[in-house]
């Protein structure tokens, strides 16, 4: 894939050079903030993979390479908007204010990781959906609800390039156009759906072309350029907020990691391709740009890395220190009220757990 030849929104290229005048909002302070966020979430990602390798986390999907997409989303959304994420969205959730502990807890196999209410204002954001693309239909429902409630809030949903092949995605896009609802779709086009390359997902040249059939605007953006990402997302959110309807954003990026920690991408994709993709990754280019502008230095970078390490170690400590869920917690939130039958089944589990915890193997 020749990302340079593809027509897409871009401000800063992979050498860190400006290819278009920066938008008004993009002052150096803001961009430095974006940069720091991206570095922090990347450090988190490295740490999460390490935790999985040492048996302290379950299977984990790395977001390596998609930091610009996530940080732009998280920063562009208002607190009162509703975010409908997919599993690679830690950067967006974190930038939105949801603690990293929650993500560790979730991938650590604890349902409380999807309870964002302790983090405050994100009570209406949806949890991850494991079945691919299903979240798109939920997002249509959320956006329709926001429109019905008339509060000028916007819903934003994300998915991968593979997800765009599913009926749920296409039905959602179609409905968003028909209903004229405040919804922004962001495709993290990271070129691979596990081992299936983008070219096998569909014959369309651009995934954003799918918007045409739905009668909404489709935009392709350099997903490794946080400036372009933020600019397009912010504009699409405003468009939706004004009642002008939905937008489909295709963020062109690359999955620099394996699909998850259970995957080995070297089985199906070439080392050359991966090496080339590293040339375009989002962090390096912004760093070059900031250094060029005199807004950042190598020493700043070292200091920031040290800071990130401290922050993340604390996050990990907190995660590892969390009291496990009670064995019977699977019953606690199944229905508002448990039937007698379920209460009996719950008792059985409690007794069984006591037996097992008591080490009684008889």
């Amino acid at each position, binding site marked *: 894939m020749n990302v340079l030849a593809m027509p897409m929104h871009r401000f800063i290229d992979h050498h860190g050079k400006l290819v278009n005048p920066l938008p008004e909002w993009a002052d150096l302070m803001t961009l430095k903030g974006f940069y720091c966020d991206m570095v922090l979430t990347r450090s988190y990602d490295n740490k999460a993979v390490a935790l999985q390798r040492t048996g302290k986390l379950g299977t984990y999907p790395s977001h390596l390479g998609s930091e610009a997409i996530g940080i732009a989303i998280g920063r562009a959304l208002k607190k009162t908007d*509703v975010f*409908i994420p997919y599993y690679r969205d830690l950067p967006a959730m974190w930038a939105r204010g949801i603690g990293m502990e929650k993500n560790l807890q979730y991938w650590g196999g604890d*349902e*409380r990781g*999807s*309870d*964002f*209410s302790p983090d405050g204002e994100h*009570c*209406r954001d*949806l*949890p991850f*959906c*494991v*079945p691919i693309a*299903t979240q*798109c*239909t*939920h*997002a*249509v*429902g*959320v*956006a*329709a*609800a*926001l*429109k*019905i*409630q008339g509060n000028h809030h916007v819903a934003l949903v994300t998915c991968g390039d593979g997800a765009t092949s599913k*009926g*749920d995605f296409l*039905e*959602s896009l*179609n*409905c968003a156009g*028909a*209903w004229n609802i405040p919804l922004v779709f962001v495709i993290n086009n990271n070129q691979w759906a596990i081992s299936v390359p983008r070219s096998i997902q569909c014959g369309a040249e651009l995934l954003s072309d799918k918007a045409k059939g739905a009668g909404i605007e489709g935009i392709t953006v350099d997903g490794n350029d946080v400036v372009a990402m933020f600019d397009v997302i912010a504009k699409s959110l405003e468009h939706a907020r004004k009642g002008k309807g939905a937008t489909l954003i295709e963020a062109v990026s690359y999955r620099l990691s394996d699909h998850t920690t259970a995957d080995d991408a070297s089985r199906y994709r070439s080392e050359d391709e991966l090496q080339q993709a590293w040339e375009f990754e989002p962090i390096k280019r912004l760093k070059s740009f900031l250094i060029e502008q005199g807004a950042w230095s190598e020493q700043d970078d070292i200091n920031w890395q040290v800071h990130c390490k401290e922050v993340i170690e604390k996050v990990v400590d907190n995660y590892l220190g969390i009291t496990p869920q009670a064995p019977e917690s*699977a019953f*606690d*939130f*199944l*229905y*508002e009220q448990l*039937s*007698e*039958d*379920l209460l009996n089944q719950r008792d059985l589990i409690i007794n069984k757990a006591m037996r097992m915890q008591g080490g009684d193997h008889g």
Partner: protein
Amino acid sequence: MAEVTLLDAINMALHYEMAHDQSVIVLGEDVGDNGGVFRATVGLKEKYGCKRVIDSPLAEALIGGVTVGMATQGLRPVAEFQFQGFVFPAIEHLVCHAARMRNRTRGRLTCPAVFRAPFGGGIHAPEHHSESVEALFAHIPGISVVIPSSPQRAYGLLLAAIRSNDPIMFFEPKRIYRTVKSTVIDNGEALPLNTCFTLRKGRDLTLVTWGACVVESLQAAQALSELGIEAEVIDLATIKPIDMASIIKSLEKTGRLLVVHEACKTCGVGAEIIARISEQAMCLLKAPPRRVTGTDTIMPYYKNEDYFMIQEDDIVDAAKLLVEGWK
């Protein structure tokens, strides 16, 4: 007071709840101007507008998912599927999302949604329009299944379903949509979702049924009565959770259990009821329990439909075997 049909009662319940709760939204294919293919939603759009009565694109997975999304945001959506046979594209949303939202988010988000669908055979409908798959949904943790069988219970149970904070599959026996009539007091009173209803008292056997089969079951009970056999007829109404306590109480008196359902036999809800009786109340039984069910076949096209529908005689014969064969 005038008698109304089961369908009218559904419509009355929707009108009542939409008038009294701004968060109730009706959506589905054709539910707006057309008032639904069976006219269950007639008049709602005129009254409550297109923001609350929403025609969706023809896409059932979408309807399922949109309903989940709306429900997470404080609305109480009531989604209509035109027939139970067209719920299948949406099953992923029902099973993977509606049923799990409360659990997945530890109660942070819930899914107070109702998924309505007409079901069952007997109206000479095309393929996919006649099945009864309530057992499929009863199997899923996090979902409740409700089937009304009279106008009064349709009204009260639908109100209860809409007010429930959990997702509910609400299956309407379309064969008796217009044929069963009774008076309904439109006072907004809901019926409980955790109990069955005894429609007829009897001492000789307990007949548990639901949906349209209630009609043939009551007829059979009448015929049996003329033969000196008194059947206690119970409308299960809430398929999940099953009110076993009431069934066991009835069995204490009768000692004989007959389950009648239109759905296929294998892994049907009848099997569940009988399994629970053998676990919990075997000693009450004076005879092995029996089932009158649909066959484990694909529902045939309508020329042969009647052979597959449960007739009054089928029930009478089974009841006689149960009582007389074990005297």
